[in-house]
């Protein structure tokens, strides 16, 4: 209870208190149709209320029928997260009133979810973290609410679009095993990466197809019990999750240091304020009166079903990164970078298969290609140059036909426009000057024209050599191999 506790920094709070963080992630499944009806699940960009039918509008007398692919995608995700798949599971009704929930209940899973007891392991600051996965279950998304009027507090009404209502939604409940905002962020990055890799989710945090709520409490270091937890919502980027958790740690730590108690509540992250704000409106209804959904017969997933889904799992990011290290001698850093997006890893393997050395393929993809992809908003696979073009360009460099800077210029020029790099090099005479006699003649000329630099170099000034190399590069319009030129100069001047 120091007098400075009200202004304690994050580090000071973390010295006194240990954060206990658990994350709940909701991911929309990439099915064509909704969870319980045949309406299109592709709600973004559809006119309001155009993707609806009596089932997802919650009209009386309709019968929901579950989407087999949604079940399969959930099982696929659960297996990728090392979960068990019980033979028996079922759906339940979660009852509450909210205008985006047309039926007055959400079909979800309560006591018999599709999967249980998984885990995700990853590394943060060199430390291995293992976060338990309590369960992965399947439910349906709600509609979307918009607030009419410019100023929320003055809005007299809200409007509802039910295109999203009934879209298959998978909930991944994590154990409170995370201890820092950085761990929470890495958990989310890894989780998102896996779901995108296995093709069940598009991982879009801004649009909310992948969203996260956090539970966070503080306790004394060494304690094993749990403090009063606060639920944090409305975080729509990894950075927002990180910042919101840091904010909560400081907020709760200062209150505890002053001897106050933490209110168990839901708080929303407000990006513009950089703060979490209490959401009293969400407090009332934690009495959901779950009961079994009478309209949906239970699920019974045989071992064969589960085995078939398991067999269809693609290589997961971690396995892929380990294989790239093993098979191509990449560093852990390069392998992690290349496998962040599955398309990059595919491009890498295609380049290597086309005869590009692994290290060169990795460097080009993570360097110039990544930069151009970012700047042009066009991935390599969708660019004019494409994988084949890049392979042929990198092979020209590796063969010594063109030098690195020519290659970079060509890449920049052909990335969007496309074209055969080898043909362009031939047409424009960009080929590297590799004729030994020609190079020797140029080197001799530069030596003759620069007696001062020569004297400096021979007097022991190493840097003077660069002036001479520069002279030769200029004479060849940059088409000489700087390493070869440097070698020739040393040879000549040593005589």
């Amino acid at each position, binding site marked *: 209870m120091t007098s400075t506790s009200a202004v304690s920094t994050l580090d000071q709070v973390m010295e006194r208190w240990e954060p206990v963080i658990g994350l709940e992630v909701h991911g929309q499944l990439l099915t064509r*149709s909704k969870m319980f009806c045949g309406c299109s699940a592709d709600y973004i960009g559809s006119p309001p209320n155009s993707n609806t*039918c009596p089932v997802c509008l919650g009209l009386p007398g309709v019968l929901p*029928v579950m*989407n087999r692919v949604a079940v399969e995608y959930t099982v696929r995700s659960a297996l990728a997260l090392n979960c068990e798949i019980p033979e028996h599971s079922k759906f339940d009704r979660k009852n509450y009133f909210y205008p985006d929930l047309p039926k007055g209940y959400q079909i979800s899973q309560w006591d018999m979810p599709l999967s249980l007891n998984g885990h995700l392991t990853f590394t943060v600051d060199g430390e291995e973290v293992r976060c338990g996965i309590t369960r992965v279950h399947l439910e349906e998304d709600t509609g979307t609410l918009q607030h009419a009027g410019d100023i929320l507090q003055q809005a007299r009404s809200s409007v509802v679009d039910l295109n999203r209502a009934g879209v298959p939604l998978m909930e991944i409940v994590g154990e409170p095993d995370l201890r820092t905002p950085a761990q929470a962020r890495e958990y989310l990055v890894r989780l998102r990466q896996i779901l995108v890799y296995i093709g069940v989710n598009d991982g879009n945090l801004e649009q909310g197809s992948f969203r996260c709520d956090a539970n966070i409490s503080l306790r004394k270091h060494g304690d094993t019990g749990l403090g009063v937890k606060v639920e944090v919502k409305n975080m729509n980027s990894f950075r927002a999750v990180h910042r919101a958790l840091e904010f909560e740690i400081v907020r709760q730590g200062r209150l505890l240091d002053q001897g106050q108690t933490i209110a168990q509540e839901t708080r929303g992250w407000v990006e513009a304020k950089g703060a979490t704000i209490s959401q009293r409106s969400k407090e009332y209804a934690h009495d959901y009166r779950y009961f079994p959904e009478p309209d949906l*017969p239970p699920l019974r997933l045989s071992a064969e079903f589960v085995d078939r889904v398991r067999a269809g799992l693609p290589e997961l990011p971690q396995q892929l990164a380990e294989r790239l290290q093993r098979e191509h001698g990449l560093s852990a850093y390069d392998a992690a970078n290349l496998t962040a997006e599955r398309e990059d890893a595919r491009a890498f393997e295609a380049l290597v298969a086309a005869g590009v050395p692994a290290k060169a393929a990795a460097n080009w993809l993570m360097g110039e290609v990544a930069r151009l992809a970012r700047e042009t908003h066009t991935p390599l696979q969708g660019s004019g140059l494409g994988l084949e073009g890049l392979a042929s360009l990198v092979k020209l460099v590796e063969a010594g036909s063109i030098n690195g800077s020519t290659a970079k210029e060509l890449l920049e020029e052909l990335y969007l426009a496309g074209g055969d790099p080898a043909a362009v090099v031939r047409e424009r005479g960009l080929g590297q000057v590799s004729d030994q006699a020609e190079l020797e003649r140029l080197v001799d000329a530069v030596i003759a024209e620069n007696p001062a630099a020569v004297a400096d170099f021979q007097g022991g000034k190493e840097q003077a050599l660069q002036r001479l190399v520069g002279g030769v590069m200029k004479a060849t319009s940059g088409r000489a191999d700087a390493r070869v030129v440097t070698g020739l100069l040393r040879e000549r001047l040593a005589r």
Partner: protein
Amino acid sequence: MTLARDQVTHVAMLARLGLSDEEVERYRQQLDAILSHVDRLQQVDTSQVGETAQVGGLVNAWREDVRSECLPVEKALANAPKRRRDHFEVGAIQE
């Protein structure tokens, strides 16, 4: 069994029903009678019966992931108590 008044008011709150004191008492008695009637099921010996939420015997009643036609927007909104253009309109929701 005897249903307490605050159980009735709690259920009324969850159902968004504003009940007068007199109504709370009336519904308490009615609900109590219904629950007592259903309570008779407790007399059946179920020690040898497995727990289940369904007796239909069906499992995995699923469909393939195929799109079907949706309702025209006009039909979807036909029963809306209030609408604003192509949206349902509701009282202001402040999150």
